[in-house]
């Protein structure tokens, strides 16, 4: 059965682009021009994934996501941001959102991220399931995947455990350090968060999400407030 995706954006032309991109991959796509249409659609049926534009006229992406979570809708969500309005990430992570794409995006980027998120939630619940190659369990990517899934499901303790496991297996995955940093920050453990971002940057100094997080934490302690949002990595 085809996976069902809902695209929520106030721009019809953008929705068209997303729809065609996803339909060519064989997904069933439904469009919504805003919060009202989206909520109505959720009444009728369940979706495997929501693509949500960060900036919309009436209710912005995070507010809509908060409403969805309030109604018990656990739909995994990809958030589309524009330069300058990356969502505030404590909010975003608390709502289980860690997958972002920045406008303007290409069909390949959208397909790749959608495929990753869908696969994440289809993945075997535990490592003992056999047909998966051995490497998958030893290079930390299984635990990273499991951690992301746990964050999507807002199970942060489990996410932390998986991230720590992933770290044990492979210390060189930037994303792991970055996500651990955001988790630490969520628990207001700023020194650990700073250390995590530092390690991520040490691995690759041009890794944008960790750079932004580090910058924000730096500003938080040097200027008292920051306009730089959390960045959970795309």
């Amino acid at each position, binding site marked *: 059965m085809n996976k069902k995706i809902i695209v929520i954006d106030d721009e019809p*032309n953008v929705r068209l682009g997303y729809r065609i991109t996803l339909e060519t991959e064989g997904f069933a796509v439904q469009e919504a021009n805003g919060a009202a249409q989206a909520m109505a659609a959720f009444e009728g049926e369940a979706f495997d994934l929501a693509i949500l534009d960060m900036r919309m006229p009436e209710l912005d992406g995070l507010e809509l996501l908060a409403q969805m979570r309030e109604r018990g809708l656990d739909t995994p969500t990809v958030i589309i941001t524009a330069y300058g*309005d990356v969502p505030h990430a404590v909010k975003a992570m608390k709502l289980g959102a860690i997958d972002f794409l920045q*406008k*303007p995006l290409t069909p390949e980027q959208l397909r790749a991220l959608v495929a990753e998120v869908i696969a994440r939630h289809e993945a075997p619940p535990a490592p003992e399931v056999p047909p998966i190659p051995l490497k998958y369990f030893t290079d930390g990517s299984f635990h990273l995947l499991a951690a992301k899934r746990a964050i999507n499901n807002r199970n942060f303790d489990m996410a932390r455990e998986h991230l720590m496991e992933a770290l044990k297996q492979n210390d060189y995955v930037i994303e792991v350090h970055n996500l651990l940093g955001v988790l630490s920050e969520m628990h207001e453990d700023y020194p650990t968060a700073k250390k995590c971002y530092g390690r991520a940057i040490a691995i690759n100094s*041009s890794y944008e999400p960790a750079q932004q997080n580090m910058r924000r934490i730096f500003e938080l302690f040097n200027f008292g407030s920051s306009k730089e949002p959390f960045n959970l990595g795309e």
Partner: protein
Amino acid sequence: MKQRIFFGLAPLFILLLVMGGYAVSLFARLGNSVDVILRENFRSVVAGQQMKEAAERMDSALFFSLVGEEERGTKMYGQNLPIFQENLDLELHNITLPGEQQLADKTRDLHEQYAARARIFWETTDMELRRKMYFGEMLPTFTAIKDTAQEIIRINQDNMIEADRQARSLSASSTRYMILAVIAGLALAAYFAFRLQRSILQPIQAVTAVSRELGDGKLDQVVPVASQDELGQLADAFNKMATKLRAYRQVTSDQILQARQMTEITFSAFPDAIIALASDGRINFTNPAADRLFHKLDLRSALPAVAQSEVERVLKGGEDYLPTSFEKAMCVRVDDQETFLLPRVIGMRDESGSLFGAAVILQDVTRFRLLDEVKTNLVSTVSHELKTPLTSVRMGLHLLLEERIGSLNPKQIELLLAARDDSERLLRMINDLLDLAKLESGKSRLLRQPISPPELVESAARELRDFVEARGSKLATKLAYELPSVDVDAQQIAHVFSNFVSNAVKHTKVGGEVTLSAKRHGGGVRFSVIDQGPGIPAGYQDQLFDRFFRVPGAEVSGAGLGLAIAKEIVVAQGGSIGVHSKPGEGSEFFFDLPISETGGES
């Protein structure tokens, strides 16, 4: 002055003269009187002796004749009579004492009587008569003569003794008088010397005292002109100088007053609060804007806390506090409105550079901040509004070119590829504009940390190597040894490297080399990107870092903002940027960064 000294010393001369004269006359009197008395009396004594002796001889002569020695007696008498007479004459002309005249007269009378009798005696041949005459008349007369002569000798001798005694007593009293006179002379001399000293020193001391007061700024002092001599002229000249000084100060203080008034008027017209502080932090001056602000904020003439801490830092000799970013503005409520004040603190130094106070300017930047916010919002809005249509355009183009929804003929593909390239270019331009706007508004805060230059270069090389090699060139690095750390935002510097390298690659032929280097330069570190491209004509090198500038004839590839952004980044980090290039010899784009204040050798 000469007169003063002369009149001061003249009494001393006179005193010396008088005393000298007195002493000379005294000694003369003393010597003279003794001498005359002794000489005259001595003469009388001698005459007396002679007379006595002659009288005795004459008496003996008479007596010889009585005993038969007629001839011998006559001869002896004849010899001594003139001697007696001669000495009697002497005595008669040497009368010096009271009573001497009578004695001399008596002697003369007795002698005349004796001589008359003697003539009769000699004429008498009768021996008996002669004897009678001798014993009856001659002998008593002789005895009287002898006694009288003796009396003359005695009074003269007595007088000599008396004169000697008088001379002694005169000498003793003279000594006493002389001692008294010397003491009086000394006292007088001391008095005159004291007067002389006072009359010379007093005017000089007066000038000295007034000079001191003048030095202390009391210009209305006058030295009394007591005389017409050199000291008086000095005092007069001094007073004239003081008058000129007074006039000069009047002019100067008028000018200062005028300058002060000008400053105050300018400051009162100044819309921003200006506060001048003394070196101990006391407020010396506030302009009306500052007074209003203090009043509205109910600050009771104290500086707002943020400014206060900077003032203390500057007064301790710190650098001036001249923030340019509105982020440093402090927010206060004035008349129920949020007002943003940007404090600036400038140390006031004299010519020798020592600090004597500080000026605080509280610039009202509320409007600028508002504008800044409007600009930021505008940027964000434009970003969203431009990027949303661009998203659907790009997405559509990409989808069509994928040919998953239908195949395209070559001409359609060509058109769509051109459209896709331009949509990418449009995106780069929008991103560049946003970067620039962000950098300019200061929103892009710097994450500055000490980092070693090799680390910066190696990290840039790592990220850019693939990009360079994909375009058929090689990437090399060249690092000097022992470079000190630099204090920079590594991500932004990476952006600059990326911009330089992408330019370099564009102008380097396939197979060429792009070199990243770091070395000491001046007080900092110079980072360069060197290419083997065609170089840039000298005429364009200055404009390269201007916005929207493109070397005419160069291949169009962007908005011409890349180097402008690079410049903004480097300048924001306290560095400078530039290019060395010669047509045909490639180009070196470089930026110099100051070394870290805390960082050590890397």
